[in-house]
Each structure stands twice: as C-alpha cells, then as structure tokens.
C-alpha cells in the first residue's frame, strides 16, 4: 500500500479550516452589523433629542 497519508491529512485539514473560517466570517459580519445598528440607533436618538429640546428663552 502506498505511503501517502499526508495528502489526505492535508485535504481534511484544508476543508476543516475552510468551513470553520467561512462560519467565522458570517459571525464577524453579524457582529459588524450589530455595531452598525447600534450606531444608527444612537444617532436616531440624538437627532430625536435635538428636535424635541426646548429652545432657550431670550432675555
């Protein structure tokens, strides 16, 4: 039997890295989306507060 186990070990390692890496990219993109949503919500709240603020009365 030929001694070529290294090729199948490399193939298995490569596929595991590929699939796990892809799953990780989904997770990273999801986190970035959550941060973006949080920023947008903060900006919306700030704009709302600015609109509803009572202007200072003139002397």
């Amino acid at each position: 039997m030929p001694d070529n186990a290294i090729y199948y070990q490399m193939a298995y390692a490569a596929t595991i890295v590929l699939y796990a890496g892809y799953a990780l990219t989904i997770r990273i993109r999801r986190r970035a989306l959550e941060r973006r949503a949080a920023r947008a919500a903060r900006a919306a709240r700030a704009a709302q507060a600015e609109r509803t603020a009572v202007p200072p009365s003139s002397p």
Partner: protein
Amino acid sequence: MPETSAAPRRPFDWFALLAVAVTAAAYVRAIWFTPPEMLQGYAQKILYVHAPSAWVAFLAFGLTALAGAFWLFLRDPRLDRFAESSAEVGVVFTTAVLVSGPLWAKPIWGTWWTWDARLTLTLFLWFVYLGYLVLRGVIPERDARARLSAVLGILGALLVPFIHLSVYLFRTMHPMPVVANPDGFQMPPVMVKTFFFAFFAFTLLYAALVRARYAFATDRDALEATLDATPDGGR
C-alpha cells in the same frame, strides 16, 4: 440588550451545533473507523470530503438557480436572500472541491492539476459564482441586483449537469462514479456507509451555513431599510 430591532442578537443556534457535531462525526468515522483502500492507500480517504463537497456545491447552485427563477416571477426578497446565501455557501464548497481534488490527484495521477473536462468545468463553475457574488456587491439598486444575479445564477447552474456527465461525454482522467454507478456500488460496505454518512453530514452543514447566512442577510436588509427610511440615512 440590543439598541435597535434592526440587528437583534439571535438565540443560540442548536441546529448549527447539530450540524457541526454530525460533520465532526463524519470526519472521525472517515479517519479512524474506515480502512484505507488497498491500491490508492490513505489518499483514497479524500473521497469522503471531496465527493460530498461536490454534491453540496451542485445542490447549492441548483437551489440558487431555482430561487432566482422563482424570484423572477414572484419578486419576493426572501428568494433573493436565499439565492445569495446558497451561492456563497456553494462557492465555499466548490473551493473545498478544488483544494481537495489536486491533493488527491497528486499521489494518484502524479500531477496536481490537468485540464481535464471535469476539472476545467468545475473551475469555470467556481469563477461563474465568484462573478455572481462580485456582481451582487457592485449593484446598489436592490431590484436590478436581484434580477441580474437571478439570471446569472440560472445560467451558471447549467454547468452542473455538464460537470456531472463530463466523465461520460468526454475522454477524461477523472474516475467514473463509484456509488451512482449502473453496475452498483464499487466499494466495500464499510466505505459505502462512511460515504453516505459524509453526504448526509455535509448536506446538514450546508443547511446550517445557509441558515446562518440567510439570517445575516435578513438583518442586514432590515437595517438598510431602516436607514433608508430615516431622513439623514442614519448618520
């Protein structure tokens, strides 16, 4: 607690955990509980990741085309999101095919790559769907993006039957199917069981990855719709 409803934190995904566990079990069975083949040696074990990855890639692109075709009639954004998700996962599985194939070819054929019909068509398929993802990235307008990518998704999937039949249509170095063969299974039962278990595991992994990618696309579209609705675009 999330500050907006546009990208809520999702609960723990038990389906993804199941898919990972089953896929890990398939690797364990292939490595430790399946004997190597006498003539090819341990390199033959690449079959248990190579063929299931190819099956999943074909399934992914077939479903991308189907979702795209339905989108053209129904204009349902969920179909476009599914097509996008399935195509992306399909590209990942095709990459696995294109990486594991040469690692199998080198010890058996004596070369990493040959411009054989099946290998070349698979490489073309990978380029077509890579182009599909690039196309989606450069068209900002939603309807045009969905329409053009649906058409490309359908045309790209036409390569799949050619790839499957290439071993019959062309003179090729790639071996004939060992399981879907008119003469019956060309492997001992223990290898056939591992083979089908790997098919099942990789299909489950595909479903879990598409599910996660689809959830991301749904939340991204919801956030973009929210930002589009605000006067300053959420800035």
